Structures are given as structure tokens and as C-alpha cells.
């Protein structure tokens, strides 16, 4: 029996080797070539595409989706899924807005205005908390990741709506008298012409890339996603890995929430609706396997760029946003098809 399995595995790799001509090369770099193709095509179709202002707009979108996607990548590498990131983004934005508006402590009869750095820390804590709940549900209570995070998707969104009564916190600029100004700094400032939010994404992506490639945790994660049984029997703390990926995903969603509310100087409870799907799409287009164990930060960033650049291009050349949805869907399905060609049937083994 095991002889058969090993021989099919060998066959699968044999196939992969056979594809490593120019075709295999294109297959390997497919997200990159797709991105180049998108930029070239839309630059030809519209003079407004290859412009600084358009790249600034697309860049700010990439920052949000990229942050969510990098967190999502960690969860997907573990073999799970995190549907709650869009809601977590909204909850964190609203939570930050609520803190910036001043927290009234009735018992003390004072209104507490936290400095911006403290608001950032508390907001990150909120994101991590949502992630921790996801992680505990998945790792300890054995709730399937899809269901657990679907639950937190609703709960986080509901809490965000409750906190604001459905309204949006505007005017996050703060008050110099209260010493809590500067929230919009992240969203509006640029360094060498590049918005700060892009630097935030790059920093987070580098950190996660480093985590995946250079630390024991990275090894634990790839092995847990590839085969949790083997990882556990090799002494990998599989449960801790499951919990941490959701916590990190929650943290990434919190950062995205901070960036978005800073870009808008407002925080609404309906922000980030369906962003989790875009994030999943970016990870998949970036070549990660939804079965876990395969995927890279670089690929995921390319995936995020492909999706944002494609969507923006379609808007610029005047294609209806309905068509945009159709195109995005087609790209995702195509990406998954190419992934399964690359990974063969081996990725589907239980």
C-alpha cells in the first residue's frame, strides 16, 4: 500500500520536473507575469492608469488588503481560514475611534483621553484578542476554522455596530489641548512620495517573511500545515501554532484597521465588509495552497497587487463595477486551477 503511495508521489514530482522548462518557469512566476500584463494592458488602454496619482490610490488599497492578506497567509499556511478579518478591521477602527473620542469613566467623573500611541497599543490588543478567541476555538474546542471565524465575523461586526449605534466616528484628528492629535499622520504622510501605509505593509511583510523563513515558528507552521500528525509526533507544539496564527492574523487586521481609519480620519462599523474574501483571494492568487503548508509572503503581496491593480484598471477604463466582480472571480478560479496543476494531487492528500 505504502509502496503505491510513494510511487504516486514520485510520479507527481516527476511530472513537476517535466514541467520545469520555460512553461514551468512561467507557471512559477505566474502572479508576477500577471501583474506585469495587467500594468501594461491598462497603461495602453488608459492614459490615467500609469500615473502617480493612480498609483497612490492603488497603493493605499494595496496597503489595506496586503496587511489582511499577510495575516491570512499565516492562517492558510496552517491549513485554516480566517473569515473574521474584515469585521476585525472594522471593530478595531471603531474601537480606536471610541478611545480617541474620550472614554468617560463615570465612577471617577472624568473623561479619559489616551495619547495616540496608547490608542494604537489598545487597538492592536483588541485585534489580538479577536484572534485569540478564534485560535482557542479552533485549537482547543476543535471548532472547524471556517465556522469559528464565521462566528467571530458576525460577533465582531455586531459589537462594532453596538459601540457606535451604527454611526461612524468622524473627526479622529484629536485636539491639541488634549494631546491626542496625529491619528491621520499615518494615512496622509508620505516619505519620498510613498504613503506611510505602504511602509507599514512592507515592515509587516518583512517581519512575517522573516518569521516564516528564519525562525523555528516558521518551520513549525509549514510542517503543521503540511501534516499536523507528523509535526506533532516530531515535537512541534501544534496547538500553540494554531492559536498564534489567528492572533497574528487578528493583529494584522488591527493594523489594517488603524491604517484605514487613519486614511479616512473616520471609523465606521461597516468598514472592511467582505475584505476577508479579497484577502483570501490575494493569498490564493499568490500561489498558496488552501490545504496548508505552501505559500510565501512574496507571493501573497503579488496576489494583493494583482487584485487591486486589476480592479482599479477596470474602473479606470470604465468597465462597470459588476464586470469588475466577474473578472476578479475569474482570476481567483484561474489561480486555484494553476495552483492545483503545480501541486498536483499531492496537496489534496489527507
Amino acid at each position, binding site marked *: *500500500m505504502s*509502496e503505491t503511495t510513494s510511487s504516486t508521489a514520485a510520479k507527481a514530482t516527476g511530472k*513537476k520536473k517535466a514541467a520545469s522548462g520555460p512553461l514551468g518557469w512561467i507557471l512559477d512566476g505566474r502572479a508576477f507575469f500577471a501583474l506585469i500584463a495587467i500594468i501594461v494592458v491598462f497603461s495602453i488602454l488608459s492614459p490615467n492608469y500609469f500615473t502617480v496619482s493612480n498609483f497612490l490610490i492603488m497603493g493605499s488599497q494595496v496597503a489595506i488588503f496586503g496587511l489582511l492578506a499577510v495575516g491570512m497567509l499565516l492562517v492558510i499556511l496552517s491549513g485554516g481560514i480566517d473569515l473574521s478579518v474584515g469585521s476585525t478591521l472594522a471593530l478595531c477602527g471603531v474601537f480606536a475611534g471610541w478611545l480617541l473620542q474620550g472614554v468617560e469613566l463615570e465612577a471617577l467623573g472624568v473623561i479619559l483621553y489616551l495619547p495616540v500611541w496608547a490608542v494604537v497599543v489598545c487597538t492592536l490588543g483588541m485585534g489580538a484578542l479577536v484572534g485569540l478567541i478564534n485560535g482557542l476555538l479552533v485549537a482547543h474546542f476543535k471548532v472547524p476554522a471556517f465556522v469559528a471565524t464565521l462566528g467571530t465575523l458576525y460577533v465582531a461586526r455586531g459589537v462594532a455596530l453596538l459601540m457606535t449605534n451604527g454611526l461612524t466616528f468622524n473627526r479622529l484628528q484629536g485636539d491639541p489641548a488634549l494631546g491626542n492629535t496625529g491619528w491621520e499622520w499615518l494615512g496622509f504622510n508620505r516619505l519620498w512620495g510613498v504613503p506611510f501605509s505602504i511602509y507599514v505593509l512592507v515592515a509587516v511583510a518583512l517581519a512575517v517573511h522573516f518569521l516564516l523563513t*528564519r525562525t523555528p515558528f516558521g518551520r513549525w507552521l*509549514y510542517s503543521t500545515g503540511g501534516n499536523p500528525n*507528523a509535526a506533532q509526533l516530531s*515535537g512541534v507544539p501544534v496547538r500553540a501554532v494554531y492559536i498564534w496564527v489567528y492572533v497574528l492574523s487578528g493583529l494584522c487586521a488591527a493594523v489594517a484597521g488603524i491604517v484605514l481609519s487613519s486614511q479616512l480620519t473616520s471609523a465606521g462599523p461597516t468598514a472592511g465588509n467582505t475584505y476577508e474574501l479579497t484577502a483570501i483571494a490575494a493569498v490564493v492568487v499568490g500561489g498558496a495552497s488552501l490545504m496548508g*503548508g505552501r505559500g510565501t509572503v512574496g507571493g501573497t503581496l503579488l496576489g494583493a497587487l494583482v487584485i487591486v491593480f486589476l480592479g482599479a484598471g477596470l474602473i479606470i477604463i470604465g468597465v462597470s463595477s459588476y464586470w469588475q466582480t466577474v473578472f476578479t472571480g475569474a482570476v481567483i478560479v484561474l489561480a486555484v486551477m494553476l495552483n492545483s496543476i503545480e501541486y498536483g494531487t499531492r496537496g489534496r492528500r489527507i
Partner: protein
Amino acid sequence: MTLGPVREAGGIAPDVVLAARNIEKSFGAVRALRSVNFDVHRGQVTTLFGENGAGKSTLMKILAGVLTPTAGELILDGRPVEIRSTIEARALGISIIHQELSLAPNMNVRDNIFLGREIMGRTGVYYAEEERRTRALMKELVEDIDPLALVGDLRLGQQQIVEIARALSINSRILIMDEPTSALSASEVTVLFKVIRDLKARGVSIVYISHHLEEALTITDHAVVLRDAVMTAAAPRAEIDLEWIVRNMVGENFDLGQPPTGHEIGAPALEVKRLTVDTAGGAVRAVDGLDLTVRAGEVVCIYGLMGAGRTELMECVAGRIPAASGQVLLHGRDIGGLSIADRIAAGLALVPEDRQRDGLVQTISVGQNLSLASIGNFTRRLLTDRRAERAIVDSSIREVTVKTDGPDAPIGSLSGGNQQKVVIGKMLATNPSVLLLDEPSRGIDIGAKGEVFRILADHARQGMAVVYTTSEVGECLAIAHRIIVMRRGRIVAEFTHDTTKEAIMAASGESLVA
């Protein structure tokens, strides 16, 4: 399927319904079958004997169309046939009942029997007719199984009957049964044998595979023995006995080594005291109050049939499944509450039975698999040090002699034997003082087996305590100082290296479950 013309049946007896001639089957470099001839006699039971890995299952899968032979031909009713899929096999009247049953436990008996062949009425599936036919089948088999009962609620023996009923419902003339009794209780075996006799009376030909030799002897009419991919003997029941089967099964063995000598057998390294492990269902005990002491430098082999509790014992000691009661001491220290990772750190490592399911991470490279259990050894200030890792991996590859293109090769590119060496090398890299190996020789060729045993003997000589399980009796006599026979969760016999294969097999219950 293609049917050739009826030929003058050269060398095929008239009562042979299906004959395999000069069958060859290779999986990559591994030759699973070499020029095997096999006859299925009409209305009789033909039993295929052989150790694990001898090629029994491969041959059965070829007869049933699951696999196609590399060379050779199948002759059905005197006509050469090509069977390219199980569907074609079924159309020819050949059905296989696998070791692991292929029923949907969430569906009822009726729906399982007609799965994929639903009878259609005017308003969808004609359930009443399906139910009527199911009842008729059960009546034929003299089994009182409700067609509407959930298969998952049935006892294993009854599920087997459902499988048989399904095969009969498509008019199978040849029924292949792969280890049908391995999971059955004695009374269920009696029922099954009665059903088999009924089937024979109806002219159904049966191909039977079993590890329970005497049990199989009570039901079979013909015996065929396979050893190392070659058919070594075939004879009708009247001419053979147990001794004949064992002799042909085991044969002259490839030298798998000798117990290591010339070193000191030290203090007890692993002590298992009154250990009890419940099965998943909880009805029976997989391990039942077992005591075992293994000393440093000692090699102990645990022999037993499927379901004897070997795997549960190993996995419980390694910390994968909890103990119901009892103690596990490592160098005198109770490791009862420790996690798998803590046990590995304390020097106790397990090489699991199923390397695809539990041993390897298929998505990462050979080198990363080898270093997976010892990441701490090349972590410097929270970061993995690639150079240190490379050094560890390279020395592992040399030590366990893995044949690979390099540490970056995909794990799937290795042969079964080399994959197994990777799993062993991975656990050896943690520098264990006690190494447990659950069926380390499963599914690897004889040369790789020899190398695996040599690696284990070398480590024992350096003071490691080695415990391995096997279901091949020849391997008990390889490098083990002591051979322990398990049966139903208990140790039923203990031998030293100078025992015989027959004695070990007799103690294991391989000769008849009473």
C-alpha cells in the same frame, strides 16, 4: 475491458474460473510481483498466504482491476481479459472486499448496497424496491440486518456482511476478501465462514487472504503462498498443513542482522508498569495492564497480529494517546504528564507506523523533514541557523544512508525505504536514549530493511534502548535480544533470540483464535 477468443486452455484446469499467468508488477524500482501464476477455482475458496509486503494485496488489486499489471495476462473462463478498472471487473463478476471497508457509515444498509446503482422509479429513487431486494439478500445470507439501519451503527462483522451483500447484488461470481476476519470477534468469524460456505454452494468462487493461518485452513480449499513477490507454492487443502504454509511463507531469509553484542546492557531505560490504554470506542482495552522493561543498549521486538495493541502501546508511551491507568518511567522518572515535545526532549522518540500519515510532511523538503524534530539544535538566539541546520542534515543523510538528490529534494521523490530512513533519521537527530519504532519495515524493500536494522543495531551498541514492532516473524529474529509477543493488549510470551519462527507465531495466536 477486452475479451479475447476462447483458447485451448493450455495448462489451465477446467475448474479454474480465473487464472493469472506470469503477472509482473513494478512500482518504480520496487518489483511487487514477479511472474506470478494464480488460479481461482470455481465454487471454492482459494487462500493466498504470505507475509506483509509479499505482494498479496497487489495481486488481489490486479485481479479486481484496481491496478493493472506491468506484464502478464488474466484469463477468465478460458479467455484472456484486460481489466482496467474496478467497474470493468465488476461487469465481469469480480468484486473485492477491502481490508478497510468501503461503506458510507452515515447512510443506511439499503442505500449503501445500491450506492451508484440506484433503482429509478417514476418519482426518483425507487426506495421500496431497493429495500425489498436488500431484504431478499439478507435472507439469502441468513443475516438479520435491517435494510434501514445506519451502517455506522452496525458491528464490524455485520458491515462485512453488507459488503458481501453488495457484491452479491451485482451477481459477483468471484469475491476477493482481503483480511476479512482481522477485525472480527470469534463469533462473527463463525458467521462469516457460514456465509462463505453458502456462497460456495451457490457457485461463487472466493479468493481469501488472511494472517490467521489455521483459521484460513479451516475454510480454504486451495492454498497459494507468496514470498517476496514470488509465488513459492500452491497446493489443494488435502495435501497441506500449517507447517507447509509457514515453511513456504518464511523461507530462507535474507540476513537482517544479528543482535548487537560486545556492549554493556545497562540500567532500565524505559519501564512500563501496569499500563492500560482504552480503544477509541472504550469497549475493549487496546493495552491491558502491560508491564515491560527495556534496558539501555537492549533491542526488544514486539510481535503481534493486527489489533494486538502494539501501536496503542507505542503511541501511549510516546504521549500521543492517553493512558487509562499505569505508569511510564524513563530512566526512573515518571513521564506520565509530559507532552510529546517534552518526551522527545527527555530522550524518548517514536517512529510512527504510517509514515505517510504520521511520519512525513509531504510539502517540505527532505532536509526540512530530517531537521523537523530537532529545530532547537540549530536555533541561535531565536533564529534558525541555516549553516548549522545544513551540517546536521548532511550528517543525518550520511548516518541513515538516505539516497537523495540532496537535502532540497522534495520528500515525495524518495523511495519508500528512503522515506522511512528520513523518518528514522529525523528522530535519531533528537539524540534519543529510547527509540520506539512502530513497524519500521512496513512497505520497504528487503535491502532497505537490512539497512534500517543495521542503523538500529549500531545505535543500540552505543547505549540506545530500541523497541520495534513487526508483523513479520522473520524480523523478530533479526536484531532483537528479546522478542515479546502481544495478543489482545497483553504480553503472552517472551523469547530470546534463539527461538524459532514457529514458536513465535504459535504464541501470537496466528494459529487459530479459539
